[in-house]
């Protein structure tokens, strides 16, 4: 009895903690906070900018641009979800915008890759620092 009584609060605490732990373990996948997504989005965007600014290969630059677009999409979705919890009438604007961006990004990717191919056929390179036609 003593032993059982001795463990009771511990167990209760453990139960409580276990529930909290499981809650904490599942939380990111079910109801992670808005700030977390925003942070992720910011990190993605920064990585994209860094890639655009530093990589010589234009294809990688392109991919970095796609990263930046994804970051923007994530931002849209995050706020859409947030407004949904608030019961706002703006709840679906973010979704629509995201789909729109995806479509445009697809078109832009096709166009950009086409340009890159044409560029490569003409100049035999896709290095960003070797293409300085816009110099004065």
């Amino acid at each position: 009895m003593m032993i059982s009584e001795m463990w009771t609060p511990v167990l209760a605490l453990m139960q409580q903690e276990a529930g909290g732990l499981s809650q904490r373990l599942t939380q990111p996948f079910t109801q992670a906070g808005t700030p977390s997504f925003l942070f992720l989005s910011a990190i993605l965007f920064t990585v994209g900018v860094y890639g655009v600014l530093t990589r010589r290969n234009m294809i990688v630059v392109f991919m970095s641009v796609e990263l930046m677009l994804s970051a923007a999409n994530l931002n849209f979705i995050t706020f859409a979800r947030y407004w949904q919890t608030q019961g706002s009438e703006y709840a679906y604007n973010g979704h629509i915008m995201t789909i729109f961006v995806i479509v445009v990004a697809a078109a832009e990717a096709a166009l950009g890759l086409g340009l890159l191919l044409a560029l490569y056929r003409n100049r035999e390179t896709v290095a960003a620092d070797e293409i300085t036609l816009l110099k004065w």
Partner: protein
Amino acid sequence: MKLIALIPFFPLIGFVFNGVFAKRLGLSEKVIGGIACLMVAASFFCSVAAVYEFSHHAHDPKVIAEAKARQAELKARAEGARAEKAGMKAETKPEGHAAKTGEHGKSGHEAKGEHTGGHESVATPYTVTLFEWIPGGMLNYTLGNNAGKGGADFSVKWAYQLDQLSGLYIVFITFVAFFIHLFAIGYMHGDKSFHRFFAYLNLFMFMMLNLVLGANFLMTFVGWEGVGLASYLLIGYYLKKPEAGQASKKAFVMNRVGDFGLMLAMMAVFAIFGTLDYADVMAMAQAYPQETLGWASISFTTGAMTVIALLIFLGAAGKSAQIPLYTWLPDAMAGPTPVSALIHAATMVTAGVYLVARCNPIFQRSPTAMLTVAIVGVLTAFVAATIGITQTDIKKALAYSTVSQLGFMFLGCGVGAFVAGVFHVVTHAFFKAQLFLGSGSVIHGGSPSGHQQEMAYYGNFRKYMPITFITMMLSLLAICGIIPFAGFFSKDEILAKALHTPVFGHEIGLILYAVGLLTAGVTAFYMTRLMCLTFFGKERFLEGPDFQEGHGHHDDDHHHAPASKDFHPHESPLVMTLPLMVLGAFAVFAGFAGVSEELTGGALPNYIHHWLSPIVDSTFYPEKAVKGINSTEWILSIVSVVWAAAMMAVAFYLYAVKPELPAKLAATLKPLYTLSYRKWFWDEILDVHFVNVMKRFNTGAWGVDFLVDSVVNLFAWTTRATSVLIRTAQTGLMQNYVLVMALGVFLLMAGMGYTFFKEFIPGNAPKAVPTAPATSQR
């Protein structure tokens, strides 16, 4: 009469046809000349028909009543006192009865209709409007009686107006022009650009008819500029003659000086009367009082009419070659002779007289302007006549004679004898056109090249050219003023009116008369000299440069062999002599249309005077009824005839009987001779005082130009230097640009973020904020 708009358009058709198609169709000279003549002839017949119809129209009581009512209304409007109109009408009505003649006190015109009876003095212009040319909208009266009282619609119509003055002009213009066109067919025979010549002549006719038929100042101005253009083209017709090009430019530029005055006058007219239509302006001008004589009247506040009149006269002096703008006319003789006859003697140069006569109600309100016109006219007449004495070029001598006669016409207008001035225009058109055509015939037949104008190489041509000689003699008698030739009646009337002028005091009239009479004598002298040198004396035509080795023609680049010495001057063909004869006949008989009734006591009516009296405003100078034969007039006439005949005799003695005398005389009177031969140094004076001043001004303007350029260049160089610096930023590396853009966006975001969220930064919160707003709603 509705078809008066056709009158100018016949020559326009000729101009377009000859100018555009004649060369391409390869038409012969006869066809081209025939078309040109035909168009002018059509205009002439239309003019005669229109004037005939108009003479009935002008006597229609209904038309007269309407014209009077319209004039009264316009006059009331010009008085600018609609509210007081009723009161004024009551006041002026007795006056209207008191002043039995003229149009004074027109508001009482119902009563006056009976007074004037059959003799109407009201202008009854007949106007045809083709279309509205310049719809300009409302503009305010800024000068004159109505200043500040509303505005008028600036609407200029392409309209033609037939009245007594324009009717007279179109008839004699088209008549003289037809014969000059005919003459030109012979004179220009063999010319390389025959069609161009006739196209220009027809263009001139179109513009001249626009000038005289135009119903408003702007229409006249179109014609005014148009005849200037045609004159320019025709003076410079001989493209290979450098002096022709110079002369055409000189004529054009000097005319611009006058046109500037005319344009200012038009602006002033609109600012005062709110319209440019002649009929309206002249009726409204009658609401203005007579202004005082003197410098004080040259101002818009005290003498609006004086200013307008002087500006109009500046335009007239430019076109009609009066002092100080006359030097272009003698130089204009570089053009072909028919041009000199048509444009620079008979028609265009009389446009100034036309305009002054047309605007006589304005001029009559300004004794200052009248005195200016009279003095300028008589001085021009005298100066040009004295220059004419020593000219050796036959056409130049005639040109100075033209300038001199134009001076007479202006003298007539200036002393209030507008009818006499216009009458002299008509007679002068006949005899001077004849003289020019005669000289053309002499030039044509007097030398192998057909271009010899120096009288030094003429002499005794009466043997070879009898028709030219006889017809020119008739015109000589006309221009010298021998009774009963045309020039006598017109010139004598001008002189008589100058002596008895009602406009100024008797002393001024006497001086004007004396100078005019002196000039008439000089005219007789130099015209006789011209005839003697050409038709009498020793035969000198074999001494001309055509017979010298290696002479060059004006028209040809290559040199000719000397002409054969068995050359004889020859009479011109019929196509040239016929105009001479017809115009010569008119030089004899035209004068009978305007015989002064003071001479005949009314036995022979003064047709010109009766015809033109409606367009002359008689408010201030009512006509005196002619009471029988006036002996003073006869004495004046006899004096001038004897004087002219005496001068002719002297000239004949000097140049035909004793040809060695003139050279001696010239040597004795060297200063006078030089003064005349060098044209009173007028060109030199103009050079020193105007041309050189303008040149110096231009040199000064170059400094301004440099300054302005420097400022502009400074901006340009600054821009360039800056761009050299800044363009190094443009590396062409895409990632540079992206970096800069990203930095910019970062700075922008940072700035915005700071602005919007600064209160959330710890320690920076405003003190008064009670609670921080909630952030996450999780």
